[in-house]
């Protein structure tokens, strides 16, 4: 029933293939990593003819499973040189699933250099359309034109000018749910640049005329699982209606992490920011209330989400400025750059959406640029000018557009808070040691969504570092990374993890949904095994690409520069980091 769509940009042919037996139970990250490992030479140039981009909805995407409209996008990253999976919440994923497509594999490069294409996929097939008229333009200008042309039932994947320039922080853009805005990003790792190198600017999908849901092997089991998971999401303090995420959104973390002394400030030089309260979730809620004259609660990024954590920020005159100001994005342009204005962070986020950039890497890059003296910390206007350089593709813009590590190297900045070339997100390892383990050891580079980890201090046995304690910490870190890899394969949003790691029935529900859809018989142990298999195959790719344990390390400066207010350095020993992978 479902097929793989192979898109060859050299021949401009799109062909449907049968799904090989071994891929049949896979979805999301599991499938994008499996295909990447099978088809992409680990030593290839990420922007050359042999890299590929794989899009895959999750195992339960396209069904009635709650909060399951995620898409994984994978390939070899031009930013890190490792395997990469990046993930977004968008109705595009459900449309692809309903079109009966398990994965879209994009390969080859156009014979005509600099030529860009749009691929239009409907129930009648896949068609290539020249995209010249949309090249060099902002996505806020182009997306409405595409929706006019292809209809409001369409969903659109696109790359912005940053992808056209093949910049290593170019993200992959998808439309959101109600507004059809170009605002949901599979941001990390520069996969937008890989699509740029293949001349594929847009994939427009429309599943109109096809059944409204993907086929299910065991309806009763699926329904049972769906109900358990829904119940868990509706009861947990974080995910429930009017819980933390629905009321304040992820940006509520700004004040919380600030009080924990772990909010990276001014390019990771401190763990608290004096302007935190001005840019936190409460400030967003209050600012909108003042500007709209009413309270505005959060909305769903994609159909079927019951957590509903996305916000929209409004200008003083009551018109829409940008959706959305998430924790990571507000932090990256806010605390990390010393900026305390939501109007400034809002504009910087809007520019990222427009130019096609990863907000986390972009904010990290501006912060490194500030450290280099290109702007003062806190100078919002100058930060906006630097973003315009990126959008114009000037020589300075091209330096910045290739990320924090490249910018740091060019301008002689040592304090570059990255791992494997990818800049760290909004948790400071010297205050949150467990996440430092994730940043250092995940196959993805410094990535906060690759796996929640347990604070090493929680796992210490009698305060001493002995062999058993090390193995204990490593196993827990590894198992959480494995569970995350599995969730990312189901098509569920990772935020379900808050609920399912606390509520056993919720976890069971997720597994029953998958068994219901696929007709498999997985248990909790199988989930762990599948997760470990995913990590193992990704690690193998990275090893073949030239990565060793010497790359699984925090940036050196974190080992000797104490971070206020805790005044600690990152002291988790190398042996502990290495032991995560000894399995």
């Amino acid at each position, binding site marked *: 029933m479902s097929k793989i769509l192979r898109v060859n940009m050299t021949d401009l042919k799109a062909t449907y293939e049968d799904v090989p037996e071994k891929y049949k139970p896979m979805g999301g990250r599991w499938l994008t990593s499996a295909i990447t490992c099978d088809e992409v030479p680990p030593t290839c140039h990420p922007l050359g003819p042999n890299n590929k981009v794989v899009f895959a909805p999750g195992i339960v995407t396209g069904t009635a499973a709650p909060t399951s409209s995620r898409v994984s996008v994978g390939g070899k990253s031009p930013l890190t040189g490792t395997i990469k999976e990046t993930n977004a919440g968008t109705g595009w994923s459900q449309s692809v699933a309903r079109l009966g497509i398990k994965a879209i594999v994009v390969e080859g490069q156009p014979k005509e250099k600099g030529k860009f294409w749009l691929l239009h996929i409907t129930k009648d097939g896949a068609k290539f359309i020249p995209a010249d008229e949309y090249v060099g333009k902002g996505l806020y200008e182009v997306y409405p034109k595409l929706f006019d042309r292809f209809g409001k039932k369409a969903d659109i994947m696109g790359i912005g000018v940053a992808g056209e320039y093949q910049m290593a922080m170019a993200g992959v853009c998808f439309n959101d749910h109600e507004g059809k805005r170009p605002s949901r990003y599979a941001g990390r790792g520069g996969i937008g640049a890989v699509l740029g190198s293949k001349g594929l600017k847009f994939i427009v999908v429309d599943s109109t005329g096809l059944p409204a849901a993907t086929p299910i092997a065991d309806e009763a089991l699926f329904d049972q699982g769906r109900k358990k998971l829904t119940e868990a999401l509706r009861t947990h*303090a*974080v995910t429930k209606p*009017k*819980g*933390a*995420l629905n*009321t*304040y959104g*992820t940006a*509520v*973390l700004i*004040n*919380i*992490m600030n*009080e*924990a*002394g772990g909010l990276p400030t001014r390019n990771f030089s401190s*763990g*608290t920011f004096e302007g935190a*309260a*001005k840019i*936190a979730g*409460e*400030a967003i*809620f*209050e*600012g909108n209330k003042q500007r709209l004259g009413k309270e505005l609660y959060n909305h769903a990024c994609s159909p079927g989400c019951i957590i509903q954590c996305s916000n929209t920020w409004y200008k003083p005159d009551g018109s829409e400025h940008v959706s959305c100001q998430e924790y990571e994005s507000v932090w990256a342009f806010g605390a990390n750059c010393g900026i305390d204005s939501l109007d400034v962070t809002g504009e910087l986020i809007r520019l990222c959406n427009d130019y096609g950039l990863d907000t986390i890497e972009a904010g990290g890059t501006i912060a490194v640029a500030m450290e280099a003296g290109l702007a003062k910390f806190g100078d919002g206007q100058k930060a906006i000018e630097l973003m315009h350089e990126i959008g114009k593709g000037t020589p300075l813009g091209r330096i910045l557009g290739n990320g924090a590590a490249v910018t740091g190297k060019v301008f002689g900045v040592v304090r570059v808070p990255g791992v494997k070339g990818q800049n760290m997100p909004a*948790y400071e390892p010297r*205050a*949150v040691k*467990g*996440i430092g383990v994730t940043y250092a050891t995940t196959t993805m580079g410094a990535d906060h969504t690759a796996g*929640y*980890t*347990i*604070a090493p*201090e*929680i796992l210490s046995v009698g305060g001493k570092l002995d062999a058993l304690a090390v193995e204990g910490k490593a196993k827990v870190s590894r198992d959480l990374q494995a569970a995350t890899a599995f969730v990312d394969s189901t098509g569920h949003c990772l935020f379900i993890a*808050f609920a399912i790691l*606390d509520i056993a029935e919720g976890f069971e529900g997720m597994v029953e949904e998958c068994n219901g859809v696929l007709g498999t018989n997985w248990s909790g142990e199988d989930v762990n095994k599948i997760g470990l298999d995913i990590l193992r195959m990704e690690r193998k790719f990275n090893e073949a690409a030239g990565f060793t344990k010497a790359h699984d390390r925090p940036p050196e400066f974190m080992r000797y520069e104490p971070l206020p*207010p*805790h005044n600690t350095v990152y002291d988790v020993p190398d042996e502990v980091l290495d032991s995560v992978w000894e399995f």
Partner: protein
Amino acid sequence: MIEIHLYGKLRRFARDQDPTGISVVHAPVQEGDTIREVLERLGVPMEEVGSNVFLNWQYSALTRKVKDGDRLAVFPDDMQLLYKWYFPKVGRDVEDDRG
């Protein structure tokens, strides 16, 4: 005296309640006071207090003792977003032992 920084609906116990600013109460404390006792004395209903409580930047149990000069930060029950195992908790609450 200790500084108590309040967030969300708990800001109402401070004089300055601007959600974009600092809502702080300066409270006198005595030897042996716990975080819970300090909050109860302030009139904070304990069911409104979430698990995100920080004493001097450390994730803390309500049973932890405070002393003069400390900084306490308290988030309400509808602002619990931290993945619970990110930080070791200093001190133990009854719920932790029930675990």
